[in-house]
C-alpha cells in the first residue's frame, strides 16, 4: 500500500493506523487525511492506498 507519512511517500503493508504508527506515547497524536484519529481508534481505523498520515509530537515553541 502506498501512503504518505509525515510528508514522505512510503510503500508499506499495513492494515490499520495502529499497524503503521504503533502505540503512540503521551504527547503524540496521529491524523489520517488531516482528520485527527483518537488514540483509542488507532486499531479500528483501516488505511487505504493513497492515505496521508501524520504523527505529531509536542515540541518547544511559542
Amino acid at each position: 500500500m502506498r501512503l504518505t507519512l509525515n510528508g514522505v511517500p512510503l510503500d508499506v503493508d499495513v492494515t490499520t493506523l495502529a499497524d503503521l504508527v504503533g502505540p503512540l506515547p503521551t504527547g503524540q497524536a496521529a491524523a489520517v487525511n488531516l482528520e485527527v484519529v483518537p488514540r483509542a481508534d488507532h486499531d479500528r481505523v483501516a488505511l487505504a492506498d493513497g492515505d496521508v498520515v501524520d504523527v505529531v509530537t509536542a515540541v518547544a515553541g511559542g
Partner: protein
Amino acid sequence: MSDLVIAGTRLASRLLLGTGGLPRPDLLGPVLAAARPGLVTVSVRRTSSTAAGGILSVLQEHGVPVLPNTAGCLSAREAVLTAELAREALGTSWVKLEVVGDETTLMPDVVELVEAAEELVARGFTVLPYTTDDPVVARRLADAGCAAVMPLGSPIGSGLGVLNPYAIEAVVAAVDVPVVLDAGVGTASDAALALELGCDAVLAATAVTRAADPERMAHALRLAVAAGTAARDAGRIPRRATARASSPTEGRVTWSPGSSC
C-alpha cells in the same frame, strides 16, 4: 491582586512562558525553575521534523501546565486542525490560538482568528487567542467565548515592548476576561508595564530563550511581573507636569532674606 484565574483554573503565576528558541534544550529546566510560570506553551510538529521534542517530561517534572499553540497557522482551518492534534496529543482542551496573517510581521489575521475562535469554542476548547491590540476585536473574541485575550505589545520576537500603551489599556477596558500581554516583551520593565496597564498576565518567549542568560532573564521577568502587579495594586501617584517637593519646605536654617547671601 488575587490569583489569576482563567476558565475557572487558578494559575500559579501571572508569568506565562514560551519555550521556543533556547540555545540548548537542557536550559529548559533551569529556566522553568527561575520563571515558575503559570502556563508553558508548546507547539505540535511532525515527529520527523527537526524540532526539539522531549519537552513534556521536563514540564511535568516542574509541575507546569502545558498550553499548546497553533503557531504558524495561516487560516482558521489550519488552526482548528492543529488544535485538534494538540488536544489529542496532550490531553488538554486549552489552546493558544494563533492565526498568522503576514509572514514578515507575524501579525494575527483577526478575521480568520475570530472565525477559528468561534469554531474551537463550539468544539469545546478553552481558547486563548493571540490577537492585535484592537479593543473591538478583543471584545469579539471575548463575546465568542474565549477564556482570555492575548494582545500583542509589539511583533513576536521584536523585543520592542508595548508600542501602544493606550491601545492595551483600551483592550483591558473592553473585555471582562483576563488580558495576557503576548509578544514583544524584551525585558523586565516591559513586563512590569504590562501589568501596570491593567493586563492580568504576561507571556514571554524570545525575551527569555534568546537572552544572553535565559535563566537569569526568567528570574528577572518573574520579579517584574510581581513588581508590576504590586505596583498596580498599590495605586501609583498621578503624573504631574510640575514638581512637588518631597522634603519639608518650612524650617530650613539659612540667611535671612535681608542678609548678604
